[in-house]
């Protein structure tokens, strides 16, 4: 199977952390908080569409709220396939980093 890309991984983790409250605004805020970089809604929604298409996440339509000008939210939640992919990604990271001693970067700095 194909591995997740970094941005997919970040998005999925953000949705997972937000649990029940993962929709446009909160996901964007979480991503910005985690990466420290600005992200526009344009990129966000195209990426989310891709995740939906790959069946990593589900879409649910929520209730309208007044501060949104009476518009509904779309809530995202992780689908089983998404969990699987996350897990695999984590294991891959573990294997990849397994043999490398901590602070391997420090060596580079000193030399």
């Amino acid at each position, binding site marked *: 199977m194909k591995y997740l890309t970094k941005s997919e991984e970040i998005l999925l983790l953000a949705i997972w952390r937000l649990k029940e409250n993962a*929709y*446009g*605004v909160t996901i*964007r805020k979480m991503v910005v908080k985690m990466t420290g970089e600005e992200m*526009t*809604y*344009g*990129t966000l*929604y*195209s990426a989310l*569409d891709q995740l939906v298409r790959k069946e990593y996440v589900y879409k649910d339509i929520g209730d*309208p*709220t*007044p*501060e*949104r*000008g009476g*518009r*509904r*939210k*779309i809530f995202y939640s992780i689908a089983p396939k998404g969990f699987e992919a996350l897990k695999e990604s984590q294991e891959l990271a573990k294997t990849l980093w397994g043999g490398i001693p901590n602070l391997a970067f420090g060596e580079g700095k000193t030399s």
Partner: protein
Amino acid sequence: MKKPSYRVPRMAHWLLNRATKSHDRFSVLGDYEEEFAAIAKDDGLIKAKLWYWRQSIHSLFPFVVNKLYWNLVMGYTHLKLTVRNLKKQKRYSLINLSGLTVGMACCLMILVYVFSELSYDRYHEHADRIYRMGTFFDVGTRSLRGAISNIPAGPIIVQDYPEVQNVVRIKRYMYRALVESEGQKFFEDRIFYADASLFDVFSFRLTRGDEKTALEAPYSIVITEAMALKYFGQEDPVGKMLKLDNRQTFTITGVMEDVPPNSHFMFDMLCSLETYLTNNPERRVEWMGDFNNYTYLLLQENTDIDALEQKFDELIDRHVGRVFETLGGKMEFFLQPLTRIHLYSRMEAEIEGNSDITYVYVFTAIALFILMIACINFMNLSTAKSATRAKEVGMKKVLGCRRYQLIKQFLAESMVYSFFAFALALILVKFSLPVFRSITGAAMNVGFSDIPWLLPGLVGLIFIVGCIAGSYPAFFLSAFRPICVLKRQSVPGISASRFRSTLVVFQFTISIVLIAGTGIIMNQVEYMKKKRLGFDKEHTVVLQIMDESILRARKSIKEELKRHPDVVSVAFASRVPGHGARHNAFLPEGYNLQESVMMGAISIDDDFLATLGMELVSGRNFSEEFSTDPGGAVLINETAVRTFGWENAVGRTIRELDGRGVNKRIIGVVRDFHVMSLRAEIEPLVIENDPDQFDCVAVRIDPNDVPSTMAFLEKTWKRIDPAGTFDYFFLDNTFDSQYRAEERLRTIFSYFTMFAIFIACLGLFGLASFTAEQRTKEIGIRKTLGARVSGIVLLLTKQFTRWILIANLFAWPIGWFAMDRWLQNFAYRTSVGLETFVLSTVLALAIALATVGFQTIKAARANPVDALRYE
């Protein structure tokens, strides 16, 4: 919670609204608004607005890309559905596709035709500044508007008027000339004299020789590349000699590119006009002498044509004013744009027969009508088949499909059809264009690459056809109410067929008009061929005289030719009927100079009337017994007598207004006969007996053994004129060839009629099989209750018959009106007969019933058990 009092920036909001795809737009906009509200509360409105703008603009590109992506996915789905439907209903798809294909192919062919017609003479660099000068005469009772002009006017005009930059005069060498070079002899029909300035005015290019001097000296000749190949093969012809008519020898001074076929006149060889003027020096200054010339002027840019024509009046007044003062009447020069000659000029003495803009319009209309018939098929069949699509529509709607999405889907479907049909049509056109070219005789040398707006035009065609064909089904099908459809209640489209009937009636109206039109054109062509012409055109061979010196031995020639038992009689004449007559002003007895009459004139010998079976109404024929007959006596025709208002013409005199002005005695009146085609009215005619003008020999033969008679004639003629060539034609052939344009029209019309009927019947076939399918159960029940096969067939065909009968109500008046107007072009014509229309109706009905019949009979004969088994 109270709604926040501040609003998001409107422009940015609108932008976002456009850019996002529809199905998560609400969520996106909601997110924006939520954050906007939060920022506004914390940091103030301005910051919030700035944020909103920045976010929108940064997001725009990803949003649009995303939207396009999903649209593509949708498009692919539409395509997949269309192809599935196409496969599922093979018969309907085939009918739809073939109809649209043929319709589009017709359209494309007409497009090429129209474009080539419009392209005539436009290849000249200065095409928009070249004008042809024609002459208008008004002499007494007749006036004449001709494409011709005299010789001296051209050079004077260039000298006197600065707005005229250059001039070229062209003159036909002869209708036919024998060209000889290095032992090779051919007859050539397209030889002209031309001024040296030809290459400055027109954009003909020499591949060999010098354009400046090629046509300057007398006896120089320029030939086209085709001619060079014909006479000299690969050799360089420049400097070689050509002998014309055994009389004059020309030196070849240049080889020219072949004249493009989209030219209003074509030529193979050009002699210098200087040759003609050297041989006939008086022509240089004679204003009223020779009008068989064509003058083309190259004008400066932005010349006022009307003003220039006014100036010509003064010019004419200066040179020939006095002539017209005494004669009465007047003469004017007028200008015609070069590019309009081919389509708009139908004057006397054109160089070649031109086309007519009306035909361009008519054919365009026919092409569009045929395309419309094909589109109607598509509409009718898709709505008729709506029952099968109804469930699909209902299901989609239940699952949340919006109406506009359905419309989009159906339009996409018709676009796909349109595109396929177009691809097939292109292939069809590629193979049938040569055929079309040969039957229309149009130049059609334009390739697709010559049409600048072709690509957008064709894409437009696909799009328009798709839209027209798909529009009605799209709106019709998408309007289904899902509940009705899914509950299998009444499905609209089976009963609501009024729209469909209207369309079928429309299709057959067009078809019947086309059939009737073809019929009337056929009638007219037949009429023109069969009409009594006042002479017998059958079994008459006409021999051309090349060497006028043989005319001295006329008597012995006649005797020699008559030696064969099948040669009935032999006569000499200046021209035979079908080749027209020369024209001049004549003055009948008792008329004063101001009342001269424009008349045609031919010259014949005493055997001519008998040879061609012409009738003498009163008086006597020319005879050898009267030595004064040649030059002293004339015959006139009945029309002339009527024009002069005479009771008895014999014994009166008539005078030609030429230099000599001899009064000639009228010795007889000939029954009217046609000198020209039946398009033109018979005009007053003078028949002289002047041997100097004789140019051909008419031989009447018995058609017992034509080949042997012809062999005899050839052998004898070679003995009479050893240097010449045996050049002959049959009178009926040449006379009928005048109607080639009409015959061509008939052919084109019948082809397009066939296409129209074919497509209309395709649609009918589809509808018939659909109806039969729909009513299977009804038929089954009727049969179990005792209905007979014939009764059911009648029941099923009744509707179609009614449609076609209603179509007649429209077709008859339209057809009558249109064809009556066409017939007005002919001086002698058939009437628009009722029988043609009755016949077209019967024909249309027969074709339609034959189309419908098979399906109907099959349905009617089906075993009712099969139909009712599932009930």
